[in-house]
């Protein structure tokens, strides 16, 4: 067997291997997209992946009767404010940590680093829940927004690294022109931070849009505040769960389609952002 034939054979095997994995990875997502158009009977019966009849009415039913119009609004509201908050907080904090020489800088930097390594899980939600009840915020979406923003340790770290890589001459010129720290941040550096802030925004959007645990804790007694994730999972526990597979799938599709679209458009930022923060030798 010649070298050429051998490479072709190995390449062929490689493609088979990669394609099997691609199918396994894609299957559940396709299952949702196709399942959202099936009747409940078809879903219960299993069988073919493609729907035999196309039930676009599932979406209308879930939107109107299962309250998903409200859930969608809640998800959008949470994700929008959480993303905006993260971008503002992380960029402002990172600018100060990277560029301003103030007493306490080292301590603050270490505090932010510390938050990245301590993970306590659900336990943190208990005192925060109590706090939300005391301040009367528990009847709104704000606790969820604020908690998904959180301490921003990762993002502060990510942006600080980026700011440190920008030339210092920029600041010096601006300071000579009489710029204070805020104007230096807002007028000079912020426009240059666009690429890294796009990553921060994307990651925060993903966290907020996909959040389940915080949202389910804060909406246990207030169904009208539920985002899509909680709405879909609740259908699993509903009294008539078996009768509502098609609603579950349509709801799941409403939740994942926007995320898939964002991914299609910004796939590069996701991949770059995943590695730029954590892995460097």
């Amino acid at each position, binding site marked *: 067997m010649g070298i050429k034939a051998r490479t072709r054979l190995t390449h062929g095997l490689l493609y088979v291997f990669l394609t099997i994995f691609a199918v396994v990875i894609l299957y559940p997502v396709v299952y949702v997209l196709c399942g959202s158009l099936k009747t409940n009977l078809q879903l219960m019966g299993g069988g073919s992946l493609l729907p035999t009849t196309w039930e676009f009415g599932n979406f209308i039913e879930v939107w109107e009767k299962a309250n998903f119009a409200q859930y969608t609004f809640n998800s959008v509201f949470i994700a929008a404010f959480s993303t905006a908050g993260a971008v503002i907080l992380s960029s402002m904090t990172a600018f100060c940590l990277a560029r301003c020489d103030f007493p306490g800088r080292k301590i603050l930097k270490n505090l932010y680093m510390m938050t990245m390594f301590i*993970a306590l899980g659900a336990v943190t939600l208990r005192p925060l829940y109590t706090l939300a009840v005391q301040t009367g915020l528990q009847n709104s979406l704000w606790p969820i927004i604020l908690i998904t923003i959180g301490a921003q340790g990762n993002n502060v770290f990510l942006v600080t690294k980026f700011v440190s890589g920008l030339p210092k001459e920029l600041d010096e010129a601006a300071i000579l022109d009489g710029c204070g720290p805020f104007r230096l941040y807002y007028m000079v550096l912020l426009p240059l931070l666009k690429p890294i802030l796009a990553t921060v925004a994307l990651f925060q959007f993903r966290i907020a849009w996909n959040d389940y645990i915080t949202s389910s804790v804060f909406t246990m007694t207030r169904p009208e505040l539920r985002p899509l994730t909680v709405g879909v999972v609740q259908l699993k526990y509903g009294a008539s769960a078996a009768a509502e597979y098609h609603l579950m799938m349509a709801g799941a599709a409403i939740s994942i389609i926007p995320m898939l679209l964002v991914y299609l458009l910004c796939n590069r930022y996701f991949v770059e952002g995943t590695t730029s923060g954590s892995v460097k030798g």
Partner: protein
Amino acid sequence: MNTKSLKSRIRQNRTVYAMLLPGFIFLVLFAIYPIVWILRMMFYQYTSFGDFNFTGLKNFSTLIHDEMFWNALKNTLVYAFFKLIITIPLSFVLAYFVNMKLRGRMIYRSIYFMPTIISVSIMSTVFYLIFNPYNGSVNQLLMTLGIVDEPINWFGNQFAMVTVLLIAVWGALGNYMTYFLSGLATIPTDIYESAELDGATGWKRLWHITIPMMAPITQTVIMLALIQAFKDYENIMVLTGGGPNNCTETLYLYIYRLMFPMGDSYGNVVLNYGYGATVAFATAIIVGIITMLYLRWSRKMDETF
């Protein structure tokens, strides 16, 4: 530096402090305050609103005799071990392949990474249907292919942990593949070229160049994966709720159920803030110790090889 200059430096930086304040409030509220709360609550018995009393180290002696805790610890270790053993080599292999000059490799990369952007809870709900013993696609496929004769109960005692692990691997592969890809990109191509001149191709190249050069990044990836595996509980909460008979309950899930024993969780846990705080503290210490042991061990490996 004397106090006067410190004072004047603080005054000089007034705007900077004002800019840091919003972020600092978030830091205190969402990172520091919960830690302080836990450290205090560990010593209290706090079972319902407004009713708590100091019990000293009682929670810790409860912890030592708590079968649920040891069971959750065992499950966490089993889960983390198998998740890593499967995910790390497989994601390395995928990264290695999609790093080759193959046509369509970007499409494969994008597909493999996709699970990491979709909600864990939603996908767990979907997998719950796919693995459904009665009409799920997995059993249908296995039976059509003749691999099994009767449906497997994927959420029963015997298979629940396997199911949870399979789904966790599905969600994690793309993430670690991406880390490995960024590592592979740092290997200079001229090393490969000169190796090729020496006649090292294919497996030899992989074994003598790629794997040794990837060692440092692999260490970091394993550490990140280890910490992440301990933190996973959203998937388990939705898939099995820790059941059946607590056989998939992990530490973080147990903490959640002590803090919020309603909704998704079953009724075999009683609300107990104080004790929940103790379990959370113990868990943080255990995760810290295991991470440190791993770091020391991997450094020793470095010196040996």
